[in-house]
Protein backbone atom coordinates (compact mmCIF):
# COMPACT_ATOMS: atom_id res chain seq x y z
CA UNK A 1 0.00 0.00 0.00
CA UNK A 2 1.64 3.26 -0.98
CA UNK A 3 1.61 5.98 1.60
CA UNK A 4 -0.60 8.40 -0.33
CA UNK A 5 -3.21 5.74 -0.49
CA UNK A 6 -3.38 4.84 3.18
CA UNK A 7 -3.31 8.45 4.30
CA UNK A 8 -6.33 9.08 2.12
CA UNK A 9 -8.04 6.09 3.69
CA UNK A 10 -7.15 7.46 7.11
CA UNK A 11 -8.73 10.80 6.26
CA UNK A 12 -11.78 9.02 4.86
CA UNK A 13 -12.22 7.16 8.13
CA UNK A 14 -12.13 10.46 10.02
CA UNK A 15 -14.53 12.10 7.58
CA UNK A 16 -16.93 9.23 8.21
CA UNK A 17 -16.64 9.75 11.98
CA UNK A 18 -14.91 6.40 12.46
CA UNK A 19 -12.69 6.62 15.53
CA UNK A 20 -8.99 6.01 15.32
CA UNK A 21 -7.78 3.51 17.93
CA UNK A 22 -4.33 3.13 19.49
CA UNK A 23 -2.81 0.46 17.29
CA UNK A 24 -4.27 1.77 14.03
CA UNK A 25 -1.86 3.09 11.47
CA UNK A 26 -1.84 6.90 11.69
CA UNK A 27 0.24 9.69 10.19
CA UNK A 28 3.17 10.56 12.41
CA UNK A 29 2.10 14.18 12.52
CA UNK A 30 -1.37 13.19 13.72
CA UNK A 31 0.19 11.14 16.52
CA UNK A 32 2.52 13.93 17.56
CA UNK A 33 -0.13 16.60 17.43
CA UNK A 34 -2.35 14.45 19.61
CA UNK A 35 0.40 13.72 22.11
CA UNK A 36 1.06 17.40 22.43
CA UNK A 37 -2.56 18.38 22.73
CA UNK A 38 -3.54 15.63 25.17
CA UNK A 39 -0.46 15.97 27.35
CA UNK A 40 -0.80 19.73 27.56
CA UNK A 41 -4.42 19.30 28.45
CA UNK A 42 -3.34 16.85 31.17
CA UNK A 43 -0.69 19.26 32.44
CA UNK A 44 -3.34 21.97 32.62
CA UNK A 45 -5.47 19.80 34.89
CA UNK A 46 -2.53 19.08 37.18
CA UNK A 47 -1.21 22.64 37.34
CA UNK A 48 -4.82 23.77 37.61
CA UNK A 49 -5.02 22.04 40.99
CA UNK A 50 -2.64 24.61 42.47
CA UNK A 51 -4.58 27.90 42.31
CA UNK A 52 -7.66 26.28 43.81
CA UNK A 53 -5.67 24.09 46.15
CA UNK A 54 -4.48 27.41 47.54
CA UNK A 55 -7.89 27.88 49.23
CA UNK A 56 -8.71 24.40 50.50
CA UNK A 57 -7.29 24.99 53.96
CA UNK A 58 -9.03 28.39 54.17
CA UNK A 59 -12.46 27.52 52.80
CA UNK A 60 -15.09 29.43 54.80
CA UNK A 61 -17.29 26.49 55.78
CA UNK A 62 -16.92 22.75 56.17
CA UNK A 63 -19.30 22.13 53.31
CA UNK A 64 -17.32 24.42 50.99
CA UNK A 65 -14.10 22.80 52.11
CA UNK A 66 -15.36 19.34 51.22
CA UNK A 67 -16.70 20.51 47.84
CA UNK A 68 -13.49 22.30 46.92
CA UNK A 69 -11.36 19.36 47.99
CA UNK A 70 -13.47 16.98 45.91
CA UNK A 71 -13.26 19.32 42.96
CA UNK A 72 -9.50 19.69 43.06
CA UNK A 73 -9.23 15.93 43.43
CA UNK A 74 -11.39 15.52 40.33
CA UNK A 75 -8.83 17.59 38.47
CA UNK A 76 -6.14 15.13 39.50
CA UNK A 77 -8.39 12.40 38.15
CA UNK A 78 -8.87 14.26 34.89
CA UNK A 79 -5.15 14.71 34.51
CA UNK A 80 -4.76 11.00 35.08
CA UNK A 81 -7.38 10.03 32.46
CA UNK A 82 -5.66 12.28 29.94
CA UNK A 83 -2.16 11.03 30.69
CA UNK A 84 -3.59 7.52 30.22
CA UNK A 85 -4.99 8.49 26.83
CA UNK A 86 -1.65 9.98 25.76
CA UNK A 87 0.18 6.87 26.95
CA UNK A 88 -1.70 4.82 24.34
CA UNK A 89 0.20 6.83 21.72
CA UNK A 90 3.56 5.56 22.92
CA UNK A 91 4.80 8.16 25.36
CA UNK A 92 5.26 7.52 29.08
CA UNK A 93 3.82 9.71 31.82
CA UNK A 94 7.30 10.30 33.20
CA UNK A 95 8.40 11.59 29.82
CA UNK A 96 5.43 13.96 29.72
CA UNK A 97 6.26 15.20 33.21
CA UNK A 98 9.78 15.74 32.08
CA UNK A 99 8.51 17.90 29.23
CA UNK A 100 6.41 19.91 31.64
CA UNK A 101 9.20 20.36 34.15
CA UNK A 102 11.75 21.43 31.57
CA UNK A 103 9.33 23.88 29.98
CA UNK A 104 9.11 21.96 26.69
CA UNK A 105 5.42 21.37 27.18
CA UNK A 106 3.06 24.07 28.38
CA UNK A 107 -0.23 24.21 30.22
CA UNK A 108 -3.15 26.55 30.06
CA UNK A 109 -1.98 30.07 30.86
CA UNK A 110 -4.98 30.88 32.99
CA UNK A 111 -3.40 29.01 35.89
CA UNK A 112 -0.59 31.53 36.02
CA UNK A 113 -2.94 34.03 37.62
CA UNK A 114 -3.15 34.17 41.42
CA UNK A 115 -6.21 33.30 43.52
CA UNK A 116 -6.44 36.20 45.94
CA UNK A 117 -9.79 35.84 47.66
CA UNK A 118 -12.40 33.19 48.32
CA UNK A 119 -14.53 34.67 45.54
CA UNK A 120 -11.85 33.53 43.10
CA UNK A 121 -13.03 29.95 43.75
CA UNK A 122 -16.40 30.99 42.44
CA UNK A 123 -15.01 32.92 39.48
CA UNK A 124 -12.76 30.03 38.48
CA UNK A 125 -15.60 27.55 38.61
CA UNK A 126 -17.95 29.76 36.67
CA UNK A 127 -15.62 31.41 34.15
CA UNK A 128 -12.54 29.22 33.86
CA UNK A 129 -14.32 25.88 34.07
CA UNK A 130 -17.07 27.33 31.93
CA UNK A 131 -14.58 28.23 29.21
CA UNK A 132 -12.89 24.86 29.58
CA UNK A 133 -16.19 23.02 29.19
CA UNK A 134 -16.87 24.98 26.03
CA UNK A 135 -13.59 23.67 24.65
CA UNK A 136 -14.07 20.19 26.01
CA UNK A 137 -17.58 19.24 25.05
CA UNK A 138 -16.77 19.13 21.32
CA UNK A 139 -13.71 17.02 22.16
CA UNK A 140 -15.99 14.22 23.35
CA UNK A 141 -16.40 13.58 19.61
CA UNK A 142 -12.75 13.97 18.72
CA UNK A 143 -11.35 11.45 16.24
CA UNK A 144 -8.98 9.62 18.57
CA UNK A 145 -10.89 7.00 20.56
CA UNK A 146 -9.06 7.03 23.92
CA UNK A 147 -9.05 10.84 23.97
CA UNK A 148 -12.75 11.01 23.18
CA UNK A 149 -13.56 8.46 25.89
CA UNK A 150 -11.45 10.33 28.45
CA UNK A 151 -13.26 13.52 27.51
CA UNK A 152 -16.68 11.94 27.94
CA UNK A 153 -15.72 10.91 31.46
CA UNK A 154 -14.27 14.34 32.20
CA UNK A 155 -17.25 16.29 30.88
CA UNK A 156 -19.58 14.18 32.97
CA UNK A 157 -17.62 15.06 36.10
CA UNK A 158 -17.00 18.70 35.14
CA UNK A 159 -20.65 19.58 35.15
CA UNK A 160 -20.62 19.93 38.93
CA UNK A 161 -17.58 22.17 38.83
CA UNK A 162 -19.14 25.03 36.98
CA UNK A 163 -22.33 24.83 39.00
CA UNK A 164 -20.54 24.95 42.33
CA UNK A 165 -18.58 27.98 41.12
CA UNK A 166 -21.67 29.86 40.12
CA UNK A 167 -23.32 28.95 43.41
CA UNK A 168 -20.39 30.40 45.37
CA UNK A 169 -20.78 33.68 43.50
CA UNK A 170 -24.54 33.65 43.82
CA UNK A 171 -24.24 33.31 47.59
CA UNK A 172 -21.74 36.16 47.69
CA UNK A 173 -23.94 38.34 45.49
CA UNK A 174 -26.74 38.03 48.02
CA UNK A 175 -24.46 38.60 50.99
CA UNK A 176 -22.95 41.54 52.82
CA UNK A 177 -21.43 44.56 51.10
CA UNK A 178 -17.98 43.09 51.62
CA UNK A 179 -19.06 39.85 49.96
CA UNK A 180 -20.60 41.64 47.00
CA UNK A 181 -17.43 43.65 46.51
CA UNK A 182 -15.37 40.48 46.72
CA UNK A 183 -17.60 38.89 44.09
CA UNK A 184 -17.32 41.80 41.64
CA UNK A 185 -13.58 42.04 42.15
CA UNK A 186 -13.08 38.38 41.31
CA UNK A 187 -15.17 38.69 38.14
CA UNK A 188 -13.18 41.77 37.15
CA UNK A 189 -9.89 39.97 37.53
CA UNK A 190 -10.87 36.65 35.87
CA UNK A 191 -12.97 37.88 32.96
CA UNK A 192 -10.26 38.84 30.50
CA UNK A 193 -7.92 35.94 31.24
CA UNK A 194 -10.83 33.54 30.84
CA UNK A 195 -11.80 34.78 27.38
CA UNK A 196 -8.12 34.59 26.44
CA UNK A 197 -8.34 30.88 27.28
CA UNK A 198 -9.75 30.26 23.82
CA UNK A 199 -6.42 31.24 22.35
CA UNK A 200 -5.40 33.74 19.71
CA UNK A 201 -7.79 34.84 17.02
CA UNK A 202 -8.36 32.48 14.12
CA UNK A 203 -6.17 34.41 11.71
CA UNK A 204 -3.27 33.96 14.15
CA UNK A 205 -3.78 30.18 14.44
CA UNK A 206 -2.92 28.82 11.01
CA UNK A 207 -2.68 25.18 12.07
CA UNK A 208 -6.28 25.11 13.17
CA UNK A 209 -7.23 24.00 9.68
CA UNK A 210 -5.25 20.75 9.77
CA UNK A 211 -6.55 19.97 13.26
CA UNK A 212 -10.10 20.58 12.18
CA UNK A 213 -9.60 18.23 9.25
CA UNK A 214 -8.36 15.57 11.65
CA UNK A 215 -11.22 16.38 14.00
CA UNK A 216 -8.80 16.87 16.86
CA UNK A 217 -10.32 20.27 17.15
CA UNK A 218 -13.91 20.84 16.15
CA UNK A 219 -14.55 24.56 16.42
CA UNK A 220 -12.27 27.53 15.91
CA UNK A 221 -11.00 29.69 18.77
CA UNK A 222 -13.14 32.66 17.79
CA UNK A 223 -16.31 30.61 17.40
CA UNK A 224 -15.95 29.18 20.89
CA UNK A 225 -15.01 32.51 22.42
CA UNK A 226 -18.06 34.22 20.96
CA UNK A 227 -20.32 31.44 22.19
CA UNK A 228 -18.86 31.75 25.67
CA UNK A 229 -19.23 35.52 25.79
CA UNK A 230 -22.86 35.30 24.66
CA UNK A 231 -23.55 32.85 27.45
CA UNK A 232 -21.73 34.66 30.26
CA UNK A 233 -23.07 38.09 29.33
CA UNK A 234 -26.53 36.73 30.13
CA UNK A 235 -25.60 34.76 33.25
CA UNK A 236 -23.85 37.71 34.89
CA UNK A 237 -27.19 39.49 35.07
CA UNK A 238 -28.50 36.85 37.46
CA UNK A 239 -25.63 37.71 39.79
CA UNK A 240 -26.41 41.39 39.53
CA UNK A 241 -22.74 41.94 38.71
CA UNK A 242 -21.04 43.40 35.64
CA UNK A 243 -18.32 42.29 33.26
CA UNK A 244 -15.36 44.67 33.06
CA UNK A 245 -15.81 45.54 29.38
CA UNK A 246 -17.43 48.88 28.48
CA UNK A 247 -17.74 47.76 24.85
CA UNK A 248 -19.73 44.67 25.67
CA UNK A 249 -23.18 45.00 24.11
CA UNK A 250 -25.73 43.00 22.19
CA UNK A 251 -25.49 43.42 18.44
CA UNK A 252 -28.94 42.94 17.03
CA UNK A 253 -27.63 42.55 13.49
CA UNK A 254 -25.09 39.85 14.31
CA UNK A 255 -27.29 38.32 16.98
CA UNK A 256 -24.14 38.14 19.07
CA UNK A 257 -22.50 40.21 21.78
CA UNK A 258 -19.84 42.65 20.60
CA UNK A 259 -16.89 42.88 22.94
CA UNK A 260 -13.85 45.04 23.52
CA UNK A 261 -10.29 44.58 22.47
CA UNK A 262 -8.39 41.76 24.14
CA UNK A 263 -4.98 42.65 25.52
CA UNK A 264 -2.94 40.25 23.44
CA UNK A 265 0.32 41.66 24.70
CA UNK A 266 -0.54 40.38 28.15
CA UNK A 267 -1.56 37.05 26.65
CA UNK A 268 1.75 36.55 24.83
CA UNK A 269 3.66 37.57 27.90
CA UNK A 270 1.93 35.18 30.25
CA UNK A 271 2.42 32.50 27.62
CA UNK A 272 6.09 33.30 27.41
CA UNK A 273 6.46 32.76 31.15
CA UNK A 274 5.97 36.29 32.43
CA UNK A 275 2.65 35.79 34.18
CA UNK A 276 2.29 36.52 37.90
CA UNK A 277 2.60 32.87 38.94
CA UNK A 278 4.43 30.98 36.15
CA UNK A 279 7.53 30.35 38.23
CA UNK A 280 5.61 29.53 41.38
CA UNK A 281 3.37 26.97 39.64
CA UNK A 282 6.17 25.16 37.87
CA UNK A 283 8.25 25.19 41.02
CA UNK A 284 5.42 23.56 42.98
CA UNK A 285 5.08 20.78 40.39
CA UNK A 286 8.81 20.13 40.24
CA UNK A 287 9.07 20.11 44.02
CA UNK A 288 6.22 17.60 44.38
CA UNK A 289 7.87 15.37 41.80
CA UNK A 290 11.33 15.56 43.29
CA UNK A 291 10.18 15.22 46.89
CA UNK A 292 8.19 12.15 45.85
CA UNK A 293 11.11 10.37 44.19
CA UNK A 294 12.15 8.44 47.30
CA UNK A 295 8.54 7.35 47.85
CA UNK A 296 8.15 6.01 44.32
CA UNK A 297 11.54 4.30 44.45
CA UNK A 298 10.80 2.67 47.79
CA UNK A 299 7.43 1.33 46.67
CA UNK A 300 9.01 -0.15 43.57
CA UNK A 301 11.93 -1.61 45.53
CA UNK A 302 9.54 -3.20 47.99
CA UNK A 303 7.42 -4.81 45.30
CA UNK A 304 10.50 -6.14 43.51
CA UNK A 305 11.75 -7.57 46.79
CA UNK A 306 8.41 -9.32 47.31
CA UNK A 307 8.41 -10.72 43.80
CA UNK A 308 11.91 -12.15 44.11
CA UNK A 309 10.87 -13.54 47.44
CA UNK A 310 7.84 -15.23 45.89
CA UNK A 311 9.87 -16.60 42.99
CA UNK A 312 12.54 -18.05 45.31
Amino acid sequence: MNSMFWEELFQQKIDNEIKIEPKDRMPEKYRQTLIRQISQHAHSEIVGMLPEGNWITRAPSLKRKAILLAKVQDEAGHGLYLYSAAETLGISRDEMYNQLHTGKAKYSSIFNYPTLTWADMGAIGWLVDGAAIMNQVPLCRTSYGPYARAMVRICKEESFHQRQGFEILLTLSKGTEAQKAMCQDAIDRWWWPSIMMFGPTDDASPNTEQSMRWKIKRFSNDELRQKFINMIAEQVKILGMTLPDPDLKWNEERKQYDFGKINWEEFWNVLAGNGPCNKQRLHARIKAWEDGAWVRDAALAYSEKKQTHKAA
Partner: protein
Amino acid sequence: MKHLTDYILHLADNALIMGQRNAEWCGHGPILEQDIALTNISLDLIGQSRYLYQYAAELAGNNATEDSLAYLRTEREFKNCLLTEQPNGDWGQTILKQFLFSTYQLYLFEWLQQYQDERLKAIAAKALKEVTYHVRWSSEWVIRLGDGTEESKQRMLNAIDALWMYTGEMFIPSESEMALQIPLDRIYKQWDAKTKAVLNEATLLIPEKVFMQKGGKSGVHTEYLGYILTEMQYMQRTYPDSEW
Protein backbone atom coordinates in the same frame (compact mmCIF):
# COMPACT_ATOMS: atom_id res chain seq x y z
CA MET B 1 -24.82 15.68 78.77
CA LYS B 2 -21.79 17.92 78.97
CA HIS B 3 -19.59 14.84 78.90
CA LEU B 4 -21.22 13.48 75.80
CA THR B 5 -21.00 16.85 74.04
CA ASP B 6 -17.36 17.22 75.02
CA TYR B 7 -16.57 13.74 73.85
CA ILE B 8 -18.24 14.21 70.49
CA LEU B 9 -16.40 17.50 70.04
CA HIS B 10 -13.18 15.66 70.79
CA LEU B 11 -13.93 13.06 68.12
CA ALA B 12 -14.96 15.78 65.67
CA ASP B 13 -11.84 17.86 66.31
CA ASN B 14 -9.66 14.79 65.78
CA ALA B 15 -11.25 14.08 62.43
CA LEU B 16 -11.23 17.70 61.27
CA ILE B 17 -7.62 18.41 62.15
CA MET B 18 -6.46 15.17 60.51
CA GLY B 19 -8.56 16.00 57.45
CA GLN B 20 -7.23 19.55 57.32
CA ARG B 21 -3.63 18.37 57.54
CA ASN B 22 -4.15 15.76 54.81
CA ALA B 23 -5.79 18.37 52.60
CA GLU B 24 -2.50 20.27 52.61
CA TRP B 25 -1.14 17.48 50.40
CA CYS B 26 -3.75 17.93 47.68
CA GLY B 27 -1.86 18.73 44.48
CA HIS B 28 1.55 17.99 45.99
CA GLY B 29 1.58 14.20 46.38
CA PRO B 30 4.43 11.96 45.20
CA ILE B 31 2.40 10.42 42.38
CA LEU B 32 -1.00 11.27 40.96
CA GLU B 33 -2.71 8.05 42.06
CA GLN B 34 -1.64 8.54 45.67
CA ASP B 35 -2.49 12.22 45.67
CA ILE B 36 -6.03 11.14 44.84
CA ALA B 37 -5.95 8.39 47.48
CA LEU B 38 -4.89 10.68 50.32
CA THR B 39 -7.46 13.26 49.30
CA ASN B 40 -10.14 10.59 49.54
CA ILE B 41 -9.08 9.95 53.11
CA SER B 42 -9.14 13.67 53.80
CA LEU B 43 -12.67 13.87 52.41
CA ASP B 44 -13.77 10.94 54.58
CA LEU B 45 -12.37 12.62 57.69
CA ILE B 46 -13.92 16.01 56.97
CA GLY B 47 -17.19 14.19 56.35
CA GLN B 48 -16.90 12.42 59.71
CA SER B 49 -16.20 15.69 61.47
CA ARG B 50 -19.31 17.24 59.94
CA TYR B 51 -21.61 14.47 61.20
CA LEU B 52 -20.05 14.76 64.63
CA TYR B 53 -20.19 18.57 64.78
CA GLN B 54 -23.81 18.51 63.66
CA TYR B 55 -24.64 16.17 66.51
CA ALA B 56 -22.59 18.20 68.99
CA ALA B 57 -24.34 21.37 67.80
CA GLU B 58 -27.73 19.86 68.54
CA LEU B 59 -26.59 18.81 71.98
CA ALA B 60 -24.97 22.16 72.71
CA GLY B 61 -27.97 24.24 71.62
CA ASN B 62 -27.47 28.02 71.64
CA ASN B 63 -27.75 28.17 67.84
CA ALA B 64 -24.49 26.29 67.51
CA THR B 65 -23.82 24.89 64.03
CA GLU B 66 -21.17 22.62 62.57
CA ASP B 67 -19.41 25.73 61.32
CA SER B 68 -19.60 27.72 64.53
CA LEU B 69 -18.05 24.77 66.34
CA ALA B 70 -15.30 24.29 63.77
CA TYR B 71 -14.58 27.92 63.03
CA LEU B 72 -15.29 29.91 66.15
CA ARG B 73 -13.66 28.00 68.96
CA THR B 74 -10.15 28.91 70.08
CA GLU B 75 -7.05 26.77 70.44
CA ARG B 76 -7.78 26.26 74.17
CA GLU B 77 -11.24 24.96 73.29
CA PHE B 78 -10.16 22.44 70.68
CA LYS B 79 -9.94 18.93 72.11
CA ASN B 80 -8.11 17.00 69.41
CA CYS B 81 -5.19 14.74 70.24
CA LEU B 82 -1.76 16.26 69.77
CA LEU B 83 -0.90 13.59 67.20
CA THR B 84 -3.40 14.94 64.70
CA GLU B 85 -2.02 18.47 64.66
CA GLN B 86 1.60 17.50 64.05
CA PRO B 87 3.06 18.75 60.77
CA ASN B 88 2.81 16.53 57.72
CA GLY B 89 6.57 16.33 57.31
CA ASP B 90 7.45 14.10 54.39
CA TRP B 91 5.16 11.46 52.89
CA GLY B 92 6.51 8.91 55.35
CA GLN B 93 5.60 10.98 58.37
CA THR B 94 2.13 11.68 57.00
CA ILE B 95 1.59 7.98 56.33
CA LEU B 96 2.75 6.97 59.77
CA LYS B 97 0.55 9.57 61.44
CA GLN B 98 -2.40 8.32 59.42
CA PHE B 99 -1.68 4.74 60.33
CA LEU B 100 -1.34 5.41 64.06
CA PHE B 101 -4.47 7.51 64.12
CA SER B 102 -6.64 5.34 61.86
CA THR B 103 -5.79 2.24 63.88
CA TYR B 104 -6.98 4.03 67.01
CA GLN B 105 -10.17 5.10 65.22
CA LEU B 106 -10.73 1.58 63.96
CA TYR B 107 -10.88 -0.09 67.36
CA LEU B 108 -12.73 2.81 68.92
CA PHE B 109 -15.44 2.82 66.28
CA GLU B 110 -15.70 -0.95 66.45
CA TRP B 111 -16.37 -0.65 70.13
CA LEU B 112 -18.87 2.17 69.60
CA GLN B 113 -20.99 -0.28 67.59
CA GLN B 114 -22.37 -1.47 70.91
CA TYR B 115 -22.63 1.95 72.49
CA GLN B 116 -25.94 3.03 73.97
CA ASP B 117 -26.15 6.33 72.13
CA GLU B 118 -27.88 5.52 68.84
CA ARG B 119 -26.76 8.62 67.00
CA LEU B 120 -23.11 8.16 67.87
CA LYS B 121 -23.39 4.50 67.05
CA ALA B 122 -24.72 5.31 63.58
CA ILE B 123 -21.99 7.86 62.88
CA ALA B 124 -19.36 5.37 64.00
CA ALA B 125 -20.88 2.62 61.85
CA LYS B 126 -20.60 4.72 58.71
CA ALA B 127 -17.11 5.89 59.60
CA LEU B 128 -15.97 2.38 60.40
CA LYS B 129 -16.18 1.34 56.75
CA GLU B 130 -14.02 4.28 55.77
CA VAL B 131 -11.55 3.79 58.56
CA THR B 132 -11.12 0.12 57.77
CA TYR B 133 -9.86 1.17 54.35
CA HIS B 134 -7.65 3.92 55.82
CA VAL B 135 -5.94 1.35 58.03
CA ARG B 136 -5.44 -1.01 55.11
CA TRP B 137 -4.06 1.71 52.85
CA SER B 138 -1.79 3.31 55.45
CA SER B 139 -0.46 0.03 56.84
CA GLU B 140 0.49 -1.12 53.36
CA TRP B 141 2.40 2.10 52.90
CA VAL B 142 4.13 1.82 56.28
CA ILE B 143 5.31 -1.65 55.30
CA ARG B 144 6.40 -0.58 51.83
CA LEU B 145 8.40 2.37 53.11
CA GLY B 146 9.84 0.58 56.13
CA ASP B 147 11.02 -2.34 54.01
CA GLY B 148 11.66 -0.40 50.79
CA THR B 149 15.01 1.31 50.34
CA GLU B 150 17.59 2.35 52.86
CA GLU B 151 16.50 5.93 52.51
CA SER B 152 12.83 5.15 53.02
CA LYS B 153 13.62 3.07 56.09
CA GLN B 154 15.63 5.91 57.60
CA ARG B 155 12.81 8.34 56.89
CA MET B 156 10.33 6.04 58.60
CA LEU B 157 12.61 5.80 61.63
CA ASN B 158 12.73 9.59 61.73
CA ALA B 159 8.94 9.68 61.52
CA ILE B 160 8.60 7.28 64.44
CA ASP B 161 11.00 9.42 66.37
CA ALA B 162 8.95 12.53 65.64
CA LEU B 163 5.52 11.06 66.34
CA TRP B 164 5.75 8.29 68.87
CA MET B 165 5.67 10.59 71.89
CA TYR B 166 2.20 11.75 70.82
CA THR B 167 0.63 8.29 70.67
CA GLY B 168 0.23 7.78 74.42
CA GLU B 169 -2.26 10.58 74.81
CA MET B 170 -4.91 8.80 72.75
CA PHE B 171 -5.25 6.23 75.51
CA ILE B 172 -5.15 8.46 78.57
CA PRO B 173 -8.79 9.01 79.45
CA SER B 174 -10.11 12.53 79.69
CA GLU B 175 -12.83 13.45 82.15
CA SER B 176 -15.54 12.83 79.58
CA GLU B 177 -14.04 9.54 78.45
CA MET B 178 -14.03 8.39 82.06
CA ALA B 179 -17.59 9.49 82.58
CA LEU B 180 -18.73 7.72 79.41
CA GLN B 181 -16.66 4.66 80.29
CA ILE B 182 -14.82 4.44 76.99
CA PRO B 183 -12.58 1.38 77.49
CA LEU B 184 -9.32 2.96 76.37
CA ASP B 185 -7.21 0.26 77.97
CA ARG B 186 -8.88 -2.38 75.85
CA ILE B 187 -8.61 -0.21 72.72
CA TYR B 188 -4.96 0.36 73.54
CA LYS B 189 -4.28 -3.38 73.65
CA GLN B 190 -5.79 -3.85 70.21
CA TRP B 191 -3.99 -0.80 68.86
CA ASP B 192 -0.71 -1.97 70.35
CA ALA B 193 -1.01 -5.44 68.82
CA LYS B 194 -1.87 -4.07 65.39
CA THR B 195 0.85 -1.42 65.29
CA LYS B 196 3.43 -3.92 66.51
CA ALA B 197 2.45 -6.39 63.81
CA VAL B 198 2.59 -3.81 61.04
CA LEU B 199 5.80 -2.14 62.18
CA ASN B 200 7.31 -5.57 62.59
CA GLU B 201 6.46 -6.47 59.02
CA ALA B 202 7.88 -3.11 58.00
CA THR B 203 11.13 -4.14 59.73
CA LEU B 204 10.83 -1.10 61.97
CA LEU B 205 11.43 -1.14 65.69
CA ILE B 206 9.00 0.36 68.14
CA PRO B 207 10.79 2.64 70.55
CA GLU B 208 10.62 1.74 74.19
CA LYS B 209 10.22 3.92 77.22
CA VAL B 210 9.23 7.05 75.34
CA PHE B 211 8.04 9.88 77.53
CA MET B 212 4.53 10.60 76.31
CA GLN B 213 3.19 14.10 75.67
CA LYS B 214 -0.36 14.92 76.60
CA GLY B 215 -2.75 17.84 76.89
CA GLY B 216 -4.68 17.99 73.64
CA LYS B 217 -7.84 16.52 75.07
CA SER B 218 -7.98 19.31 77.64
CA GLY B 219 -7.02 22.06 75.21
CA VAL B 220 -3.32 22.32 75.96
CA HIS B 221 -1.83 21.92 72.51
CA THR B 222 1.45 22.11 70.67
CA GLU B 223 2.17 25.41 68.97
CA TYR B 224 1.10 23.98 65.64
CA LEU B 225 -2.62 24.07 66.37
CA GLY B 226 -2.74 27.84 66.61
CA TYR B 227 -1.48 28.16 63.06
CA ILE B 228 -3.85 25.50 61.75
CA LEU B 229 -6.79 27.39 63.25
CA THR B 230 -5.51 30.78 62.13
CA GLU B 231 -5.53 29.56 58.56
CA MET B 232 -8.68 27.50 58.76
CA GLN B 233 -10.77 30.07 60.60
CA TYR B 234 -9.53 33.14 58.73
CA MET B 235 -12.65 33.72 56.64
CA GLN B 236 -15.16 33.23 59.45
CA ARG B 237 -13.17 35.48 61.75
CA THR B 238 -12.66 38.22 59.16
CA TYR B 239 -16.24 38.26 57.89
CA PRO B 240 -18.41 37.34 60.87
CA ASP B 241 -22.07 36.41 60.45
CA SER B 242 -21.89 35.82 56.71
CA GLU B 243 -23.35 33.05 54.59
CA TRP B 244 -20.92 31.20 52.33
